[in-house]
């Protein structure tokens, strides 16, 4: 039970990152590795703000703002121009990888390579019907569940949510209807950055952070997106929660060192047995290139 809950909370946090990845991946087809920079960078901005003595709330707002601006910059300066030249997906992937590698090194040069923590000392715990949770776990779980629910409602209820779904279905058709998809893509990136940074801050409070944690998170988010099913927004959330639970079970029953291998074995199993994922629509994999 305890392990299940740990996994669930890890999964909820991962779901935020997964949704951030899926937003960009569904909407634009870009393999958004540079998302890792946002994940790694946001806690450092918060840390800087707290150390400068501007208070937590201002710090959180500033780091979320940083994430949104950076994420928009990706689209405006990197992927937008590439898209205009009709670059292939591989080129987008390579460009995104390049951005990730260089910006993470910038973070490491500014703040050092060490692991940092946002809080001091041992966290207080709370006992809920036999399950012991730390305060930061509780905060992480509750905040991410709320954010996910808000996002899903927003996607269903608002006009721009409808445009998002249309963009991930068929961007050409959407632009033929007279919608400005370039601007919509920037919004997609902004929202993705916001979700990622929120997850990063919640995770940083719980387990600390370092400049190089981004790539691993993005890979997990990618796995969650694929097993959830591309094209779907509920998929990555369910996928991420599954992944979080699986990973915590592996840590408990085998060893933390097998976490990665098990994650990717799950991915391979899905790719072979159900390439469209849990909530995706079946189609020829080759046809979706």
């Amino acid at each position, binding site marked *: 039970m305890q392990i299940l809950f740990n996994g669930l909370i890890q999964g909820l946090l991962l779901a935020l990152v997964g949704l951030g990845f899926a937003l960009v991946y569904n909407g634009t087809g870009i393999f958004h590795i540079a998302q890792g920079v946002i994940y790694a960078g946001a806690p450092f901005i918060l840390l800087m703000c707290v150390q400068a003595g501007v208070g937590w709330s201002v710090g959180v707002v500033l780091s979320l703002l940083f994430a949104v601006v950076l994420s928009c910059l990706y689209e405006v300066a990197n992927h937008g121009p590439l898209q205009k030249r009709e670059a*292939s997906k591989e080129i987008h992937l390579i460009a995104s990888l390049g951005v990730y590698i260089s910006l993470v090194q910038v973070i490491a040069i500014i703040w050092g390579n060490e692991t940092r923590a946002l809080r001091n000392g041992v966290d207080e715990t709370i006992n809920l019907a036999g399950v012991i949770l730390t305060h930061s776990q509780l905060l992480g779980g509750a905040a991410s569940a709320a954010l996910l629910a808000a996002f899903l409602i927003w996607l269903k209820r608002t006009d721009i949510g409808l445009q998002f779904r249309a963009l991930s279905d068929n961007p050409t058709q959407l632009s033929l209807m007279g919608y400005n998809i370039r601007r919509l893509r920037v919004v997609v990136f902004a929202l993705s950055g916001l979700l990622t940074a929120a997850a990063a801050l919640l995770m940083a409070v719980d387990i600390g952070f370092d400049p190089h944690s981004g790539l691993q998170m993005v890979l997990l988010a990618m796995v969650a997106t694929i097993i959830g099913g591309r094209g779907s927004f509920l998929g990555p959330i369910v996928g991420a929660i599954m992944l979080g639970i699986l990973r915590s079970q592996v840590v408990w029953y085998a060893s933390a060192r097998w976490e990665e291998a098990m994650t990717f074995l799950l991915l391979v199993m899905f790719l072979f047995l159900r390439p469209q994922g849990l909530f995706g629509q079946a189609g020829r994999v080759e046809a979706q290139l």
Partner: protein
Amino acid sequence: MNYLLHLLIYLDIYLIVTMSLNLLMGYGGLLQVAHAAYYGIGAYVAALAMLKFGWGFFPAVGLAVVVAGILSLAVSLPAWRFRGDYFVMVSLAVQSVGYSLLYNWVDLTNGPFGLTGIPRPSIFGYEFDTIGAVTLFASVTAGMCILCTVLLLKSPWGRLLKAMRDDELAARSLGKNTRMAKLQAFMLACALVAVAGSLYATYVSYIDPTSFTLDESILMLSMVIVGGTGNIRGPLVGALILITLPELLRFVQIPDAVAANVRLMIYGLLLVLMAHFRPQGVSGTYRLQ
């Protein structure tokens, strides 16, 4: 002088690596990110054969080549079904599982502590124990590997690979067995990179799993992308650039603490610049599509 010879050995090793990766990327059109795993498998199998069985260098390399060739099925069989993003994910999974095995199979690989005391290569009783001799040996090996690859690519088999890259369905409809060709290409590439891995193992005489991570795969990928794909000189140029560039940085006064970060930052920037302005690389002919 020794410093230059040392660089030359590294260059030789990476020449083999980039040639083999070019076979997959430039001629097969597949973005393979599991190459460091095969490099590691080559290094470990050769080292273990020499240390545990007391084999000579050549039988050990032979074994490494065979093992890597067989294990290449792990990426080549999925490549029958998946292209594009999906193939990238499969090879990511292989990379991650391969690394976990090297790291976790402690009885065989000694886990994170690595293997020490790997002997230098010897031929007919003459041991290549000075750095000059090793340089000669590595250069001859690299030269032979490059020659073999060039001859193969000039043959009808090389043309088949190109045809498959440009239009797999068309090649198949002309009665070409593209699946077999893919299998062979992967086998050859993994076998070649295993040769490079065993050269590396005997040269540095100490290996541990951290030399064979995803980052290493990305470095290999960057070499091929920067240099250019689809012809013979592209990967050679790429290896030359990415090996010499960080060495040139030594002569610029950068504090040691951030030297590694600056180097990686430049790799990343190179990738972004290439993606934007020269997708076929410095001297390549094939644009990743």
